[in-house]
């Protein structure tokens, strides 16, 4: 149990550092770093607060707090990935619309030049 909690703490701190580093290097935009940072903070708090973890395990009806931690980790990352899927879908739609518009504008410009 303790080892798992320590490992989660280390991983959440690493995740936070990686995200902040990536934002600083402009690899991730600030608005998309929020969900990752929120996920890292949630994991950090849960891994450091046995009271909170035990309380959540009791609410979920789980006898084993590490199981509750794993379940929460899973849920947090599912939410983050879902949010990214929404963002990617929006971006793809926008990208296709821009590509189509670009092709049409190029076509009309070329037509005008030929006339």
């Amino acid at each position, binding site marked *: 149990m303790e080892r798992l909690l320590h490992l989660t703490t280390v991983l959440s701190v690493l995740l936070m550092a990686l995200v902040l580093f990536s934002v600083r290097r402009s690899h991730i935009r600030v608005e998309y770093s929020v969900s990752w940072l929120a996920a890292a903070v949630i994991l950090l708090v849960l891994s450091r607060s046995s009271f909170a973890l035990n309380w959540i395990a009791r609410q979920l009806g789980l006898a084993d707090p590490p199981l509750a931690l794993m379940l929460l980790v899973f849920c947090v990352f599912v939410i983050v990935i879902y949010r990214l899927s929404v963002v990617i879908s929006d971006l793809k739609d926008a990208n*296709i619309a821009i*590509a*189509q518009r*670009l*092709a*049409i504008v*190029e*076509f009309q410009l070329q*037509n005008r030049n030929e006339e």
Partner: protein
Amino acid sequence: MKPARGPEELLILIPAFNETGAIAGVIQEVQRVAPQAPILVVDDASTDGTDQAARRAGAYVLRLPYHLGLGGGVQAGYKLAYELGYEYVIRVDGDGQHDPKYIPVLLATLRETGCHMVIGSRFQNGDGDYTNSIRALGIWFFRLVLRPILGKPVHDPTSGFVGVNRQALRVFTGSFPLEYPEIEALVVLQRKRFRFQEVPCRMRPRKTGRSTITAVKSLYYIFHVLLGVFINVLKFEGRRKKDLGREKDLRRE
């Protein structure tokens, strides 16, 4: 390419991706059948010079900056046709499978019946060939699925040999499926209470290249399209209920 000159003007749309071996022949055949109609080839970022071959054959070419897939390409052509004021657009595939001699039949059906979409159907007379058994199974399956949704039978829901009028064109400029668009497009139109009609025609073997839908991809195709169909049904039903609710509120006021 100039804006449509009159209210009855027809545009022939040919989506193509790496069809350099067939595109010129298709364009020449279309020119013989419909000499007045401008031909627009939508080149989906081909790497084999399809755009140049199409230009040499006398077509206008709308070249996409990167590969968007069939739906994205067709929609780009629909958008341009709509902006230029065309009343009818008939889509002919660039691989030579669609025989242009049926273009006048499709156009006459659009004009005379007032339907919004006309489909060149391989199977309406029951003599069409299936390319493989999985595809045959897929077509049979979608006929069953679409029958209650569309409210009437459709014999060839996967045919890309289609003509649309300006009203359908307007709908498709805003919403058009990106992958495997034929079946979903039918559902989109039906949800708008638009009508479609099938006319029998024969398809030919493709002149060059191979179909992108292989036997294995057919299974993915079935799943993908089925999901798209039901999402469209749910989406439009949701909107319809909202509209009905708004109408009731207005009546109460």
